[in-house]
């Protein structure tokens, strides 16, 4: 058994695992619902039934991790297949530990497999973003937001959009704290992944998003106070 898996399942390690990303037969929806229930029952059981359920869950999590990493293949184009396999295994192992630690909190509001998948997608997504940004500098006192103040109307840019962008630059300068400005610039303007910034600042995704959210609220309030109509503005990826 790999060392990481042993760490993830200490005290509850299954005897064996299946292939990392083995092909599987598609099952009808009702069959998958039963499979989800059976898997959950197995994890709550003891002995051989739990061992089998752990093996099945780990295989499911590895499948989820590979799904997530495939979605990010452009981001990870420079990463070898061997390293991607290792990232998937690490994500599955970490997710397995999280699922087992939180198993008692599962209340059945969703399918168990959906619940379990979200843990491994989170783990694999975070690892992928951090791997992609490995070695890249994140400049925190970046003042690239000032360029918004130079925005002028053009063939491609309406007078209203140019005016709003300039007003946003003014609101960033006068309305945000230095910390809000740094976080806002990195996340909303420069596209630094929030998990990467969280790692660099030794904080959490939730804490950084709260800062971004508060900054956006301040900007909206400032802009609305200056008479800008924001009803049709904002909010989309």
């Amino acid at each position, binding site marked *: 058994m790999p060392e990481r898996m042993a760490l993830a399942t200490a005290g509850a390690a299954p005897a064996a695992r299946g292939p990392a990303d083995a092909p599987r037969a598609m099952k009808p929806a009702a069959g998958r619902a039963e499979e989800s229930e059976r898997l959950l029952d197995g994890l709550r059981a003891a002995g051989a039934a739990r061992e089998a359920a752990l093996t099945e869950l780990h295989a499911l999590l590895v499948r989820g991790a590979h*799904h997530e990493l495939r979605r990010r293949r452009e981001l990870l184009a420079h990463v070898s297949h061997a390293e991607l396999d290792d990232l998937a295994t690490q994500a599955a192992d970490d997710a397995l530990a999280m699922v087992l630690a939180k198993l008692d909190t599962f209340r059945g509001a969703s399918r168990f497999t959906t619940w379990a*998948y979200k843990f491994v997608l989170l783990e694999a997504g975070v690892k992928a973003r951090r791997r992609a940004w490995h070695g890249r500098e994140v400049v925190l006192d970046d003042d690239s937001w000032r360029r918004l103040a130079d925005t002028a109307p053009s063939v491609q840019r309406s007078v209203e959009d*140019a005016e709003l962008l300039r007003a946003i630059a003014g609101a960033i300068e006068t309305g945000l704290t230095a910390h809000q400005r740094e976080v806002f610039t990195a996340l909303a303007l420069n596209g630094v992944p929030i998990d990467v910034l969280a790692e660099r600042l030794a904080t959490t995704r939730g804490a950084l998003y709260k800062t971004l959210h508060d900054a956006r609220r301040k900007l909206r309030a400032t802009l609305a106070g200056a008479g800008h109509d924001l009803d049709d503005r904002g*909010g989309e990826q």
Partner: protein
Amino acid sequence: MTTDHPDRALIGRLLGPADPEVSCDECFELLDQYVDLEVAGEDADARLPGMRAHLQGCPACHEDHESLRELVAGDGTRPTG
């Protein structure tokens, strides 16, 4: 609003959603339920208010949502109610 225009997309990214939204932690707690409702054809936004706005405002949670929905929808785990 459309995000086809780069300036509109930029403004959208800068200002974020106007509607009340859940936090990242709340989003993670509800994400599996939200996706199962979506895949089952239910009105997930009515059942779990605040999720849609957060998914529009938070790129990382947005990606997690897209990935989970794609995985569940393609995995044969479609909820049957």
